[in-house]
């Protein structure tokens, strides 16, 4: 089997598994794990927003929690204070996150590397503290609880998140759609331009790419992904809180992405899954699960700096290569 067909097989199994979750998981484990998987899907999308910036454009953002928080609050404030129904609140969350990403991005993408990492965390801290102090709007650390209006209410058809299967499929399809869009984006000319900037921004500018504008576009798109994740999380928990805008939330996503494999579509999913499953399994037995999380993070960066997916890709490449190329044959370098 070639690497590509192995990959296709795995994708099919993965997709079939995700669709079967609401029936399979309660049979094998318990209902609780369906909601854990839904949560993993949401956080994977959040990690994907870090990955879009770091893995594809080379900008390490430490402040994506800001846009996650705006997605959350857009939904919560939309429903609770403005009395919006489901879809307008969803859009409000997404637009709020993207608008915020645009405004902060205009300043942030002027900087690169250390400076970029720090200014993103500074922006997110500013709004974290603002959210803490403006309790009348945000509820501060206690947050806003709200009751969720039904998602679909046409004629006799009424679907809402109180139905856990509907909730799961709504989250799954939204996350899958976003990942599909990201897949298309990476393959598009825009995505190639992103990669050119990641690999060498000076050369990219010399072949006529507008580096500043492209970075800004990437930043807003990453804000979109984080905003959708935040809005979904607000639907999921019927809750929004300033604590999700703290830099620890952004930092965790950076860890998930690098441990999973930055610059790969599935890397964030793998990293997020790994850490959330460890947390869920260990934390029920042992309250000090953070020790394990920390140790895993350190071990992965030492022994698998390209992340779990990078390790896997290398492994697959070695197996298929060994079959394809008889031993002793000289290998041609196709890349410079």
């Amino acid at each position, binding site marked *: 089997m070639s690497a590509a067909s192995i990959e296709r097989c795995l994708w099919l199994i993965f997709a079939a598994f995700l669709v079967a979750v609401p029936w399979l998981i309660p049979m094998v484990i318990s209902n609780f794990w369906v909601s854990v998987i839904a949560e993993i899907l949401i956080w994977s999308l959040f990690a994907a927003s870090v990955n879009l910036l770091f893995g594809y454009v080379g900008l390490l953002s430490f402040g994506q929690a800001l846009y996650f928080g705006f997605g959350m609050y857009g939904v919560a404030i939309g429903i609770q204070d403005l009395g919006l129904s489901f879809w307008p609140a969803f859009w409000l969350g997404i637009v709020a996150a993207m608008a915020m990403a645009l405004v902060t991005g205009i300043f942030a993408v002027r*900087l690169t590397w250390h400076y970029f990492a720090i200014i993103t965390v500074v922006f997110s801290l500013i709004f974290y*503290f603002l959210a803490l102090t403006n309790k009348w709007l945000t509820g501060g650390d206690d947050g806003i609880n709200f009751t969720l209006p039904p998602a679909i209410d046409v004629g006799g058809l009424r679907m809402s998140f109180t139905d856990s299967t509907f909730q799961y499929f709504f989250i799954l399809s939204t996350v899958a759609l976003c990942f599909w869009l990201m897949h298309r984006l990476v393959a598009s000319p825009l995505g190639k331009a992103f990669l050119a900037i990641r690999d060498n921004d000076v050369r990219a500018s010399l072949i006529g790419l507008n580096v500043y504008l492209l970075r800004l576009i990437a930043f807003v798109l990453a804000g979109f992904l984080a905003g959708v994740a935040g809005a979904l999380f607000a639907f999921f928990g019927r809750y929004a809180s300033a604590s999700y805008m703290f830099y620890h939330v952004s930092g965790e996503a950076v860890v998930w992405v690098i441990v999973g494999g930055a610059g790969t579509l599935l890397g964030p999913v793998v990293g997020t899954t790994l850490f959330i499953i460890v947390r869920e399994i260990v934390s029920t037995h042992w309250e000090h699960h*953070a020790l394990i999380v920390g140790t895993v*993070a350190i071990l992965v960066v030492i022994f698998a700096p390209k992340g779990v997916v990078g390790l896997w890709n290398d492994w697959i490449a070695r197996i298929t290569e060994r079959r394809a190329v008889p031993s002793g044959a000289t290998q041609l370098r196709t890349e410079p």
Partner: protein
Amino acid sequence: MDRLLLLAMNGLIWGLIIALIALGLAIIFGLLDIINLAHGDFFMIGTVLAWATLQSTGSFWLAFLVAPLIGFAMGALIQRFVIQPIHNVAALSIVATFGLSLILQEGVRITYGPTPGRILPPIQSTIPMFGVDYEVYRLFAAAVAILALGGFFLFLQHTKLGTWMRAVRHDRDTAVALGIPAGQVYVLTFAIGFALAALGGVVAAPITTVDFRGGVDILPFCFMAVIIGGLGNLPGTAAAAILLSFLEGIIQSVADPTVARIASLVLMSTVLLLRPQGLFKGLTR
């Protein structure tokens, strides 16, 4: 007016302590080129070591010796076994130090416990100042911080090791060609960075609380000092720490502490955007 002076004085003293910690962060940042997310926890370890020394020996003063030494040793080990294997790659070092931060916090939570504690100042006396009975220990803390800052700059400018640290920072390849053991200088730098933060922890322990989350608030503040002072500009970092804390103290006399924090964050983003070399570029070398 008295209240303003009091808060300004508190801010100034706190700024001197922060300057110590931020200096540790700045040398690690400047020399090893890594963003050390565990640095706040190095400070927190210092406060816990102060508490542990007081509990086991009954003497707080001993902590001024014990904590920096243990910090130095831990820093050396961490550099050798965690930072060095990842070849100082910035993105990986962020993950590694984030993991380290979790381990240190959780380790303290297991051993010390989850509830914040207080240490009584070893100097109990007070003097009347600004209309209140001001703790003499705070003045003592400021003196220790000034001495340590001065000592560090003397070390950096006038000893062989200090010169090596500056040389490797300035031009690693040339330094190596001249026979300076760069690998050991990295270990030394990280160890000194940890020791400075731990010393800051001891000095601050009777003023603040001993808590496994004690480093979380300190970290952004230290980064602010490093950025506003200018990356790699060590006197600038120290000056920025003092200035920031002083300003926050003054703003706190009229507004909420959070407002003060927001003000310094806004100042920091302005500096980042307009003068990424730091406020003091050109004033010091």
